[in-house]
């Protein structure tokens, strides 16, 4: 859970849904082969409360995802943040705590 990876690619599908949202991107591996990654984000409601929007990403957008990779080695990860082509960073994918709350309390 603590190991992080950063992967850049092109959005194939952004699914705003419950119980969790999913971002699928196409990326090119060092050898040139293409690979589809699936990244898990929070529930639609929690993402909205954290400043995300269903229209933030659409097919064809270039994004850079930082995530915790799956332990089973599959191209799947849990999103920490997503950097959009316009420089905006979407973070705290599982919902930022309400104002005034310090994480870890």
């Amino acid at each position, binding site marked *: 859970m603590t190991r992080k990876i950063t992967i850049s690619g092109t959005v*194939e*599908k952004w*699914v705003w*849904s*419950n*119980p*969790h*949202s*999913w971002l*699928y991107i196409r990326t090119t591996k060092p050898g040139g082969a293409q*690979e*589809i*990654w*699936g990244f*898990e984000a929070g*529930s*639609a*409601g*929690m993402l*909205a*409360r954290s400043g995300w929007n269903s229209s933030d990403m659409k097919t064809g957008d270039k994004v850079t995802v930082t995530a915790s990779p*799956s332990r*089973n080695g*599959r*191209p*799947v990860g849990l999103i920490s943040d997503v950097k959009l082509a316009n420089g905006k960073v979407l973070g705290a994918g*599982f*919902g930022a*705590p*309400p104002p*005034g*709350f310090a994480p*870890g*309390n």
Partner: protein
Amino acid sequence: MNNRKTVLAAIMGSAMMALPSAGVAQAGPPPGPPGSLERPTAIPMQAPSPNTMQPASTALGSKWSDVTKLPDFFAGNWQSVTSFLDRELQTSLTPKAKAYADAFKPITDIPFAGAGCKTPGMPTIQRLGSPLKFFFEPGMIAIYIENSSMTRFIKVNGKHAARPNPSYLGDSIGHFEGNEFVVESIAFADDILFQYTNFPGKGTSNFVLPIESIFGPHGPNLRMVERMKLLDPDTMEITLTIYDDTVWTKPYVANTQIFKRNRGDAGIPAEWVCGSGADPLEFDPASNESIMQDPADVLKKLQAKDAK
């Protein structure tokens, strides 16, 4: 076309007959002309359930004007900031429950592992992190739970149903003791997610994972008592005591839950509908766990669905 209308009218009529209607004699429908659609002359009707709302109560929470006297549970919504599973459970299990726990294998998924994103029920559903929204009417406090889009209906100063049917949120009654809202719930579905304890040495961190916990069946007389109160205007505490003598040798006092208030736009709860098919984890009933699919295969399915 006329026949279809006649059939529809007959169905609608039958449906309306099934509705309880106070003061209406239980006579059959007026006789129709010869050859008209036959209907039974006496529709058997169940006696309506007794009213358990007690509208005549004068206790706090029974009148509209009481809303000004109640603690403000109602503005915005409440988001849990504590673990949805308990840590450091110390209450001894009964021999039967211990035998069950000793044979239990860890589950490797979140409590939504059930097919179709089935709710884990109380108390877990209320602790999962998505907010709770309280509403009031005289004799009732409702709590909308964003996870699952389910709503608890708590009869304030009321009584339990005489024969409550099992449900995932239970049959709940509540009353105020000073500033505390005390809620008692009974009649739970057999398959709510019910935490017995944690594996030895596991579940000690602030956030306990399902893989660290042991779950099992509850008994028929399971009862949960919650005490809800505000610690400050934006902090709510819920304590929970669970009574089930088939599982524990004495009442189990759960970890105290803390909720923080969201206001403004963040205070409006969202809907919760599953079924997008976007999750590469697919529940396998045979193994009772979720299997990770190749994301490329999932994407193909999603794109094929879009193309239809």
